[in-house]
């Protein structure tokens, strides 16, 4: 009921503004604006809600700015119940008059509190107020807000806006908003409603489905049939997109698995070292990212968007150096004794975890997302988040670079030679000890790189690595030990299979099913997807 009154007032306000008749009506509206603004000092959600409708209805040109300030927490009130507004530049203004105020002379100011109900009121009010805004982005937002609030009293303003709109996208959004409004009105004409259903049907996403499914019961038969048809159609379309979505999510999960496993594919796959501390290398990479961001936050905030780019080489170096230390200090004495290696590296993993826990504290550390990695974009019926997309790209780049390094560099040649026949390589004057250390460093360094990426999607805590170690071994063993392509195909197929199982079996059962499948597969092909052939296998 209150909502209706608000919209009535908004439309009234708009028409008054449009007509430009700021006479006596303007006078009383100014008073209503002031009395509405005063309610913000009430410090109760009900008062704030009433104030929003009052301000939105007042038709005052400062109304939109005031409500935006409320949304951003820039609307303040003092002990003596006066309301102030801090504008985007940080200047303090008297809210009702718009006159500058001197912060120094005022008592302590508190921001006007908002909760979810108030946020919805703000959204609806701003939607109504900015349908005719100058900036296209605001008009689009306003149209979407009306689509959600779907209140009948916005209709005249919508019609005006549709008539004036030149931007195709915004016009469509406005028309969809009008359709949403028409459908939820019982008094709208049947023909209009049918047209509205077809507009919503064309939109065809989850919001459209939600709107149609949530329509009030009393509709003419034709409309009801059209709505049922449209829902069926949207469901079909969404089901098709669902398959694409599972595939995308699977690739994304696969790329995370690939990142975590590819370093292991070198140390375990190529060198045959069971490195239980692999996960901790990933964790060290993530903590390096955290440190880089701390330094940037403290000394050069402008560089924040580049923090990951700076962290990438550093994380590689940190993890690689620790990898060398582990190899030279422990693992080289244990070559050819896999069980002892397993225990020793497991011990190292515990030591590293506890060292980080002591140094950085047990709680999670915040690693921020650079600007370009936040949020998501819509592609047809899909929501793809930027951070996941970048991780897929990053994993791809690492894979290609690593493959090239093994194929085309001298170090890569030596590595392959040592793996295939250690004694012959030694006889050919290849320093096998140094190559071992460098190979281990490369594998660890790549785990460090994975840490940079994983810091964007997971906890940066001392336990970060533990969650990935089992999955990494699974990928390497499934893909075929000693083969990078096997790791790629293994990671991607496990990721995609997981995501197709998850919606039906749930996350817990899905994972169990996947493990069962892998066990069965390994029974059939003990050497994984891409088994190495020839003499190298026996070495």
């Amino acid at each position, binding site marked *: 009921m209150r909502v209706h009154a608000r919209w009535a007032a908004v439309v009234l306000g708009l028409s008054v503004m449009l007509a430009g008749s700021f006479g006596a009506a303007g006078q009383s509206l100014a008073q209503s604006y002031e009395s509405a603004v005063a309610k913000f000092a009430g410090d109760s959600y009900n008062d704030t809600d009433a104030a929003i409708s009052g301000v939105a209805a007042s038709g005052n040109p400062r109304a939109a700015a005031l409500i935006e300030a409320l949304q951003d927490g820039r609307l303040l009130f003092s002990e003596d119940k006066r309301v102030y507004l801090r504008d985007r530049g940080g200047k303090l203004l008297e809210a009702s008059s718009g006159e500058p105020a001197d912060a120094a002379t005022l008592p302590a100011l508190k921001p006007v509190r908002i909760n979810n109900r108030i946020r919805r009121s703000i959204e609806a009010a701003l939607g109504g107020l900015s349908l005719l805004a100058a900036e296209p982005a605001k008009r689009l937002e306003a149209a979407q807000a009306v689509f959600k609030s779907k209140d009948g009293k916005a209709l005249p303003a919508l019609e005006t806006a549709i008539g004036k709109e030149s931007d195709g996208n915004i016009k469509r959004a406005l028309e969809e908003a009008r359709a949403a409004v028409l459908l939820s009105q019982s008094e709208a004409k049947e023909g209009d409603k049918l047209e509205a259903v077809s507009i919503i049907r064309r939109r065809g996403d989850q919001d459209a489905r939600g709107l149609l499914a949530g329509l009030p019961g009393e509709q003419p038969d034709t409309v009801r049939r059209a709505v049922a048809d449209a829902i069926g159609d949207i469901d079909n379309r969404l089901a098709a997109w669902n398959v694409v979505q599972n595939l995308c999510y699977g690739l994304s999960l696969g790329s995370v698995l690939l990142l975590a496993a590819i370093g292991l594919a070198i140390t375990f796959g190529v060198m045959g070292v069971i490195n239980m501390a692999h996960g901790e290398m990933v964790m060290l990479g993530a903590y390096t990212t955290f440190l880089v961001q701390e330094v940037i936050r403290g000394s050069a905030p402008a560089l924040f968007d580049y923090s990951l780019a700076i962290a990438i080489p550093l994380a590689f170096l940190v993890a690689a150096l620790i990898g060398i230390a582990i190899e030279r200090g422990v693992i080289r004495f244990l070559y050819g004794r896999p069980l002892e290696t397993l225990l020793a590296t497991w011990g190292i993993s515990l030591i590293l975890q506890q060292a980080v826990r002591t140094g950085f504290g047990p709680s999670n550390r915040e690693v921020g997302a650079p600007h370009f990695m936040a949020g998501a974009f819509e592609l047809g019926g899909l*929501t793809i988040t930027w951070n996941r997309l970048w991780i897929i790209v990053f994993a791809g780049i690492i894979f290609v670079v690593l493959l090239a390094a093994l194929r085309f560099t001298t170090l890569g040649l030596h590595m392959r030679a040592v793996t295939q026949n250690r004694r012959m390589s030694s006889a050919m004057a290849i320093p096998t000890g140094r190559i071992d250390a460098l190979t281990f460093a490369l594998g660890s360094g790549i785990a460090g790189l994975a840490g940079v990426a994983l810091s964007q999607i997971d906890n940066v805590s001392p336990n970060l690595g533990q969650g990935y170690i089992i999955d990494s071994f699974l990928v390497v063993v499934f893909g075929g030990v000693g083969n990078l392509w096997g790791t790629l195909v293994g990671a991607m197929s496990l990721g995609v299979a997981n995501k197709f199982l998850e*919606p039906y079996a749930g996350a817990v059962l899905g994972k169990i099913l996947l493990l069962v499948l892998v066990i069965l597969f390994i029974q059939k092909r003990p050497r994984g997807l891409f088994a190495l052939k020839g003499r190298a296998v026996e070495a």
Partner: protein
Amino acid sequence: MKRTILRTAMAASVAAVASLPLALSASAQDTIKVGILHSLSGTMAISETTLKDVMLMLIEEQNKKGGLLGKKLEAVVVDPASNWPLFAEKARELISKEKVASVFGCWTSVSRKSVLPVFKELNSILFYPVQYEGEESERNVFYTGAAPNQQAIPAVDYLMKEEQVKRWVLAGTDYVYPRTTNKILEAYLKAKGVKAEDIMINYTPFGHSDWQTIVADIKKFGSAGRKTAVVSTINGDANVPFYKELGNQGIAAKDIPVVAFSVGEEELAGVDTKPLVGHLAAWNYFESIKDSKNDEFIAKWKAFTKNPKRVSNDPMEAHVIGFNMWVKAVEKVKSTDPDKVIDALPGIEAPNLTGGISKMLPNHHITKPVFIGEIKGDGQFDVVWKTDGLVPGDAWSKELEGSKDLVADWVDKKCGNFNTKTNKCGS
């Protein structure tokens, strides 16, 4: 197996023989030992280390006030390393070897279940500070965290009334606390007329990090045209990726609010909370609550940890209340003897940090206020709703068959699961 029993028996008899002179020398030493049983390493260290610190602070403070019964308190810290069987071993070590007067500890329900037999056998006292699934009341345990009716049920009521929620996603980590809580909530929602098709229940493994599918499912579930909310019993570590995915997929609190029972100030410390503003949490304490007791506590806590950014949270407050209650009970009976203290504790009152006085009930749970807070941009919570007074904790849920007839009463009935239908102790 047999050998363990033998060893335990031997240890027990040795302890029994040794206890006489030890008890004498203990009074000569003039200290009362307090056991702290929280994981300082392993997965749970993230949450439990803080509780160890808060206990050390409380003990130091009590000693500055002159100790207890004229003796100094001495903290005995052990590290059960997030390893459930080790909890039982360390509890035994604290009670038998260190002779502690009482133990403050445990976080997960499985660790509490693991130490229960030890506390019963050796007759000692455990203060358990974490919100849990209920359905338990033991003579040797005092539950200072919230029972489901002090957290989950009020949160659901809030969503129903204030947010007009009609469809419910119950998402949790796959273990005993979320499963029991969700069972209680499902029964409660159905009793309120919510249809089975409007409830979606989803469990994920510990440390789950790929939330894409589940968040997309929640979005889909929310597109049925009726207001949807998520009730989250997702545990600790898995929350950060969950909230990151929510933020990235653009699920705003004003469309689909998420109310969490395991997310507090500490958990949010690792997340950029700007995309999460407006999502909810239900607790009995928030750091942001303005109260002179709370301000004083926060100032002391920051000084003690020498970290001005250190946050405080709900289980910490539970330890503060529990510790003060224990101190009062010991002072009342002028002894640390477990039997006397256990009998003295029900009825003891201690101020909580949000302006109320909590009371220990005969069922070994306490009265607490319930707050609903919205996440703010700075990682703190803004309280948007609270109960009128303090809510007494129910050991046995009124929503579940088989549990609604049970009451726990250690004062009159001397029973943790008294069946009011059959008038017998034991279900």
